Each structure stands twice: as structure tokens, then as C-alpha cells.
């Protein structure tokens, strides 16, 4: 049976093709573009820096994929990464050994995520409002804690391990991203709670009637997001060598953009880690290339904004048959 559609089938399938091709075609296009326009771009050293620099974004984007799969959003990620980096730097400055500080940060991050989840899910409040509040709180706290001054990290082993060190020839941040991707992909594809997320995102009422503990699954995802945000904060602090308020102003935008470019539905039920990875790589190349070409930071926002809108419109057209 062919379902009723306001838009002709062909138009929808063209939109679907474009949506599915967007992250890959976009990635190839920006790589080709920057290769031609900047002599520094196609360079092994630049490529390594690009990968290491994008680790923070990757981790947050993976978490955002799960959150958007549920039809929710987390606007607090950038602010929380800054806050956790500040707290991490201060703990080490106060003499806490770096491994303990790292563990503490992972714990605090998970708790913040859990809080977002509990307020959203059990309070039945839209996540964008809850996480907007959390964003404001985290931003405020990071300024209050530091008096607006960045806190330097002196622990050499920490800085080396989470930025410069290599394992089997590859930078440690890349290993961390790879590990996070593998675990998250395994969770989504091969575990019971992970597979149930698709149903929870697409139709929570039906999932509940199928015996899925919907609220527990939803809250868990926010906690996972918090854990990944903490991991991202650790890498970000190591890269910058300090903790400072508002240290990653574009992170929230970039993470959401990566997921959207990956063709996820903002209504929940459809998202893919691999496609988010591609979307995040596209954003990372854009960030890197625009810096190489000395494009003003404000103009970078415009470029990303246009890409996000394009992706969202394509996704809308592509799901036209169901809308």
C-alpha cells in the first residue's frame, strides 16, 4: 500500500538521497576545497593537529547522537566542558594527583548529565529548557570559580598523556575517540538497552507498552552524555593547558551540527554514530581550514549556520512521505 503523500515520491527520494549523501559529499567537498586553497592543509602535521583538536567535538557529538536519537537535545555541553576543565585545573592546582582529578571529573560530569536527565524526564520538562538552565548555571559557576581568569595546568604527565603522547604511533586523544566510538556503536547495535533506544526515541508510548523501561533508558542517555562531556573536558583542558570559562564557545553548536549533518531526525528515532562521525569530521575540517585561510571567527559561524539549515531542510523534505 502506498501511503498518502503531499509531495511527489520522486522529490522525496531525491531529498533522501541528498540527505544521505550530505555528510560524505560535504566532507569530500571541503577537503578538496581547502586542499586547493591552502598550501598548509594537505600536510601530515596539519592532519594530525586536526584530528587531535577535534577529539573534544567527537566525544560530545557521540553523546549528542544518543540524546537526539531520543528526540531530546542538550544545550549545556559547551558550558559544562568549560566548567569541568576549570574544576579539573583547580583540583590539580590544589595538589590533587592528576589521576584522582580525572576520575573526579568523570564522576561530576556523569552527575550533571544525570541531573539534566532526571529533571527533564521525571519533571516532564522540555530538555532544551532544562539544559539551557544548566548551561547558564555552568557558565556562571566557571566564572565565579575562576574570577574570570584562566587556571593553568602544571601537571606535565597529564598534559603529555592527554595531548602529545602516542600509542602505537597514534595520538592518545585519537585512541580515546576510537574507543568511545566503538563502545557507543556496540551499545547501540548489540545491547538490549541500546537497541531499545531507537524505539524509545521514535515512539516512547509504544516502547513502554512493549515493556521497555522508558524513563530509565532516557535518564541513562543523559548520564552517558555527561560522562562523555567530562571526557571531552579532560581532552580540552590538556589541549589548552588550562581551564578557563567559556573556553569552547562553538562546541555546542558544532556537536549539534555534526548530528544534524549526519541526517538524524530531531523528532527522535533516527540517528547514526557513523554518520555523526562524518558530520563531525566535516565540521572539524571546516574549523581547521577556515583558520588556515584566516577566515574571521564570526564568519565561520555563518558558514556553519548555513550548513545546519541546509541539513535540516533536507531531512524535512526527505521524511516528507511520513510527515
Amino acid at each position, binding site marked *: *500500500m*502506498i*501511503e*498518502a503523500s503531499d509531495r*511527489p*515520491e520522486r522529490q522525496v*527520494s531525491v531529498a533522501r538521497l541528498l540527505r544521505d549523501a550530505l555528510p560524505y559529499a560535504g566532507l569530500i567537498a571541503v577537503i578538496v576545497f581547502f586542499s586547493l586553497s591552502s598550501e598548509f592543509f594537505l600536510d601530515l602535521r596539519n592532519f594530525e593537529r586536526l584530528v587531535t583538536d577535534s577529539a573534544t567535538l567527537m566525544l560530545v557529538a557521540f553523546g549528542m547522537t544518543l540524546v537526539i536519537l531520543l528526540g531530546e537535545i542538550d544545550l549545556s555541553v559547551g558550558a559544562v566542558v568549560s566548567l569541568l576543565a576549570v574544576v579539573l585545573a583547580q583540583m590539580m592546582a590544589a595538589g590533587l594527583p592528576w589521576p584522582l582529578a580525572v576520575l573526579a571529573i568523570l564522576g561530576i560530569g556523569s552527575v550533571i548529565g544525570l541531573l539534566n536527565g532526571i529533571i527533564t524526564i521525571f519533571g516532564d520538562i522540555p530538555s532544551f529548557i532544562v539544559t539551557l538552565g544548566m548551561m547558564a548555571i555552568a557558565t556562571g559557576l566557571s566564572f565565579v570559580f575562576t574570577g574570570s581568569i584562566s587556571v593553568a595546568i602544571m601537571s606535565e604527565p597529564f598534559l603529555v598523556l592527554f595531548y602529545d603522547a602516542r600509542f602505537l604511533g597514534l595520538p592518545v586523544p585519537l585512541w580515546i575517540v576510537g574507543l568511545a566510538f566503538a563502545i557507543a556503536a556496540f551499545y547501540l*547495535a*548489540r*545491547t*538490549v*538497552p541500546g*537497541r*531499545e533506544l*531507537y*524505539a524509545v526515541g*521514535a*515512539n516512547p*508510548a*509504544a*516502547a*513502554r*507498552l*512493549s*515493556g*521497555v*523501561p522508558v524513563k530509565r533508558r532516557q535518564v541513562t542517555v543523559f548520564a552517558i552524555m555527561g560522562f562523555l562531556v567530562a571526557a571531552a573536558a579532560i581532552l580540552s583542558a590538556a589541549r589548552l593547558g588550562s581551564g578557563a570559562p567559556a573556553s569552547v564557545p562553538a562546541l555546542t553548536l558544532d556537536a549539534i551540527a555534526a548530528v544534524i549533518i549526519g541526517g538524524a531526525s530531531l523528532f527522535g*528515532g*533516527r540517528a547514526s554514530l557513523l554518520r555523526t562521525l562524518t558530520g563531525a569530521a566535516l565540521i572539524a575540517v571546516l574549523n581547521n581550514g577556515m583558520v588556515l585561510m584566516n577566515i574571521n571567527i564570526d564568519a565561520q559561524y555563518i558558514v556553519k549556520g548555513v550548513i545546519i539549515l541546509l541539513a535540516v531542510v533536507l531531512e524535512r523534505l526527505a521524511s516528507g512521505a*511520513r510527515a
Partner: protein
Amino acid sequence: MLLELTHITKRFPGVLALDEARFDLRAGEVHAFMGENGAGKSTLMKIASGLFPPDAGEIRIDGTPVRFSSPAQAKAAGIHTVFQELTVLPNRTVAENLLIGREPTRAGGLWLDKTAIRRQAQTILDRLGIGLDADRPLATLSTGQRQMVEIARACSQNTRVLILDEPTSSLGRAEEDVLFDLVRRLKADGVGIVYITHRMSEVFALSDRITVLRDGRFVLTDETSDLDRPALIRAMVGRDVAEDRHGVDPETLPVALDARGLVRGTAVRGADVTLHAGEVLGIAGLMGAGRTEIARLITGIDRPEAGRMDLFGQSFAPRDIREALSRGVAYVSEDRKGLGLVLPLSVADNVALPSLAALASRNIVTPGRIADFARDWMQRLGVKAAGGAVAVETLSGGNQQKVALAKWLAIHPRVIILDEPTRGVDVGAKAEIYRLIRQLADDGVAVMAISSELPELLQMSDRIAVVAQGRIAGVVPASEATEETLLDLAFFEGDAA
């Protein structure tokens, strides 16, 4: 001939939806258009209403060939369609909905002439015999009344052909009568009416001629008076469908579920239900009598305020659905699209959803295992789909229902409650679902089947319990029950209310 569709062929990616199909319509007749879900009825009518062009074939109006490249052109030619999905603006009044897009204006189109809108709309409503106030906001109307507004909108224009796609699927009895009156009135005005439906009784009550389509091909067009039920079913299904009844003596079977004095709110007011393993207990009752609400108590979706339940002799007070499921009690919702299935997900993921934990070892489950599991259950229930990986939303109603059933049979329930198991399902799939239900009971499962269609209850049940005002008004063996006795009980007014 008012409208003729000949040799219409339409191919969609992967399916031949219509293969040389044909249909003709006279002025002033009601022409029933029947066929199983997926037979191509809606596709053909969408072609007639200009929604998409045919790949081959001809459309003629009054003998003159026409080509529609948009619905607007079909409308201009007098062909109006009321689809199943309603397209109304709930916050506007009946009048505004009725005249949308052609409202009378004042000051050269600067603002709407509210008075004229109301007056014109009321005239249309009165002429069609629809007893509605043009000023009422649409949100205050029942689904059936909204359907009336939709039809009024379609036929208040220059309508010559009116296509109604399952107009009664969301209507109550009284509303149906109003609709039938309306259809007869339009017919008397010389409008040709194409009436797509699954309901036999309506076809015989209302139509002058019947056309049957099967697998996109024309099967027959005949005067209604020359056809009977079995002939029609044979034409649609292409084979004989056994319409047999069953009779075991349920009282001799072990009791699976015993519920006493269930109470919740005003919907359930002291319901007693005894369900035996191996029987099909039909649940009859009017809309709002509390049938679904009782089912929700038994399946742990809601918790009763009073009363007790025993499951196979052991106390049963599920705190939530998960607990009911773990005790082997499953519920197949009447709301297939909203609660039963996750439409955008694949058939396999839907079938496996409640069974994931059982398929997993230490919470880890491989996609291959899910696919095998789903394939097995799709085969057992005869789900027709290109594979387990296709989205459920692409399947026909009957196949979706089979997926919903498969999903719950796969947990091997001891008690299963089916709420409207054949809603929106065509005749052939209905027969298969009845067979499945019977087979379940024969396998010793306790089956409770809620239905609004009395003939269906009579056919599939061993016993029928009639719910009225939140209580069981009576239980009758299906072999002794008639539609009249059931309706009698359904209208039963409890003396100790």
C-alpha cells in the same frame, strides 16, 4: 458514463500497484469499491483525483478523455475526494473550515466577511441535512462530525463525483446513519459516489453496484443485487474463506485469570472476569463501556483502585507492564500506530522489541539473531514484507497487525488480550487473524478478544462477555448468542449503579 477509468497501470518502485485496472461510475449511483488492503483501491482513486498520473491508461469524463496533472484540475472537473486522514483546522469554526480557500471577502478582498461565511456555511449544512451549528469550533466536534464537515466541504462545490475513502472507519452507529442519509441525498442530486469500504453490511445497504479489485487487477463489476457475501469475499480473496464457528466447553478448562471487583475511576466499576486457558473470550460493549480500561488493569498498564486478580491460582497484582509481561500476560493495543508498533522502525526490530532481553545473553544481542528470530515469526504469521529490514510503516494494515501479533506471540504469553485485533484489516487478513487466534487457544493460551464488531465476536469467540458501564453485564456462550442478545446486554442499565 460519468467517469471511466480504463486500462490504468501504475508502477511504484518495486510494486506494480495497478495492472490494467478499470472502474466506471454513473451519475446518481453509489458504487462500492472493494478489495483487500493493498489491492490498489486507494491508488486508483488517487489517480482519479489527480494526486498522481497513471503510467498507462485513460481517464474519461462524459466520454471525453482528460488528463489531470494536479488535484486542482480534478476538482475543477468536479471530482472531489474525502480521504481517511482528515485535514481540518481544529481551532476554527465549522463555517471557516467549510469555506476554507473560498471565503467571501469584503473591501475587495482586504478582510473576510464573517457574517457571509457563517450564512453560506449554514446554508450548505442545512441543504445537506447535517444538523451542525456553523459557529461551533471544530475542536468541540466528534470525529464523526468532523467527517461530516469534510464531506460537506467536498460536496458544497461543483461536485459531480464524490470519492469517499473508508468514511465510516471512525464513526459511531448514529453518525453512520447521518452519513448514509447524506450519501443518499447526494445520490438523489445526481452525484456519482465512489464508496471505498471494508464493511460488507454497508456495501449491501448502500450501494447500487460493486467493483472488486485484487492485486491491482480488475476482478468484477456487478449490480449489488446480483452479489452476496460469500461471492464478494471470494472475489476479493480469490479463494473461499471459512467462516466457521468453534465450540469447546470452556467451563471444563482450567482457569487462567480470575478478576473480582476491579475498580478504577468511573470507567471500571466492579468488573468480574474469568478467563480459561484454551478459550477465546470475546468482549463486547459500546464505546466507553470500559472494555479497554479493564484490559489495561489486567495487563498492568493501569493499577486498579479495588479488586483482586489471580493468575493460574496465584495472586496477581502487577505494578507495571513489565511485571505483567514477566508473568506471561500480553496486551495487543487497539491503537496499532500509536501504541502497538514503532512505525519508522523495521519489522524485525518491532517483532523483537519485547523479546530483546530473552534473545540476549548478558544483555548482548547480535543483529543476526534478531533477524533470524523475526524471520521465523514473520513466516509463522504470514507477514508479507520484502524482508525483516523494511520499515513497518510501509506495510498494509493487515500486515502491520500481523507484526503486532507476532511481537506478542513471540514472548509466548499464557494470557493475551487482543484489543480490536482486526481494525483496519481487510477480509483475507481478517480470516487469517481469526485462524491464528483459534490456534492460540488450541495451544492452551487464554485469549481475550475485544471487538466492536458483533459478527466478528460471534465468529471467533467461545464465550462472549458484554461490558456495560464498567461492569460485566453478562457472559453468553457464542453458540447461543445473537447480535440482538449482545446488544440487549450492552444497553443493560445496572440497577445498583
